[in-house]
């Protein structure tokens, strides 16, 4: 999957999860701030990303994934979730 396709897939997922329009969201925009998410909504969004892309964000770094770019970079690095 190209980076462009990955970004589109991520935007579609965020759109569905947050029920907010993310098409105009910049790669470095703060998701919580721009989408008006509360802290739990931010976690729900990361959970959706983990499930959809079969990745697992490191617990101690959850607060770092607050922009599309950060999430995309992490997915691209593909540390897939251990199915066990």
């Amino acid at each position, binding site marked *: 999957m190209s980076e462009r396709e990955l970004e589109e897939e991520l935007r579609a997922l965020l759109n569905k999860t947050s029920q907010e329009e993310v098409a105009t969201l910049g790669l470095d925009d703060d998701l919580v701030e721009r989408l008006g998410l509360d802290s739990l909504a931010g976690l729900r969004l990361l959970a959706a990303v983990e499930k959809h892309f079969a990745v697992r964000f490191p*617990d101690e770094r959850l607060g770092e994934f607050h922009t599309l770019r950060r999430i995309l970079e992490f997915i691209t690095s593909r540390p897939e979730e251990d199915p066990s």
Partner: protein
Amino acid sequence: MKIGLIAMSGVRVRTPELAELGVTLPQFVNRGKVVASLPSLGLLTVAGLTPDNVDVAYREVAEVNPDEELEEFDLVGISSFAAQIDEAYLLADRYRAAGIPVVLGGLHVSMMPEEAAEHADSVLLYGAEGAWPKLVSDFRRGALQPRYEGLRAGVFEEPHYARPRFDLLRGRAYNRITVQTSRGCPMNCEFCAASLRLTSSFQQKPVDKVVAEIRSALEVTTHPFFELADDNTFINKKWGKEFLRAIIPLGINWFTETDISVADDDELLDLLAESGCRQILVGLESFNGEDLVGIDPSGWKQKHSDRYLEAIERIQSYGVTVNGCFILGLENHTPDVFSRMKEFIDRSGLLEVQITVMTPFAGTPLYERMRRQGVLLQERFWDRCTLFDVNYKPKRMSVDELEAGMRWLFGQIYNEREYTQRQRHYMEIVKKRL
């Protein structure tokens, strides 16, 4: 004519060691900060009750600056938490010295009207419904009375009900908006200093009125998170389901306070999740049934305490997080309560925890009992009614033991590692539901 409605905001912990802890463990005062930063629904309701031909301004003041110029009004109405009441009195005194009449109202004022009357031209007790319109009319004809009593029942019925003026919040940066669906709670816990002290019985707002209020708030705010300003929203499950079905189309995220019995109703839990309820705050008070004897007159909490763990797991499995509230310093608590509470919280899987110290707010049965028993540390301690400062001599430990144990427990519960674990737990629950 212009009326200034002023809400005293912000609450500061007084015990220095605890205030310091708040800097290093910010989560422990999180909930208190959220509550203190909410707009005053009481004053927005007062604004709604004000005749259309009177201008109303809504203001919030955290601290009174004696050098600051006062904004000019014809009449000022001030409402405050107990912890900020002295600041409210200071502000009231300043306005009165400037020749501007002041009305004081709110929960503390309703409980201590004689004290408040020393700083006001008039005090308004209980809810504003049934009293504020008359107060404004009396004021306009120069006949303001020293005391008004609002209705204690029928507050949501016409012609007394008024929709809160959420439009007064336009342009302000609130991320949480309060809406009330009920006033009072039949449990009548001894320590409770919430709206039940203002009512003679449980008051339930009709669903269509609540929905209209939420729609009205949505018109003036962007992405608000709604906080229901109720003592116990789901006392009436039939009403609850009707309400939840009605708000599903609104697509909001929201929070409320209720009791553990919601865990018994699958349909209600489904509707909670579907309607965007992200968290319910439940007063568990303690982990041990014996600690809960006498908390509420019917013994309801004690009877339900042995199923706390199962109920928490069940509610959270629906993606609705439980903010479990515990009170330290109950009659039965001994110095081993802190480690035992930590153990229970670890086992519970609670996604959020709020620990406070027993606080004898003025006007509560707890305050009256402690006063009779002579265990209050000071006669007047309103500025220490922060839910974190100790104001009485506990029965089975010393004040120092309670304070030190509380600090130890905060350090155990509110550290980064525990917070991260709760975040991960929530994400795993969400993933199971996707």
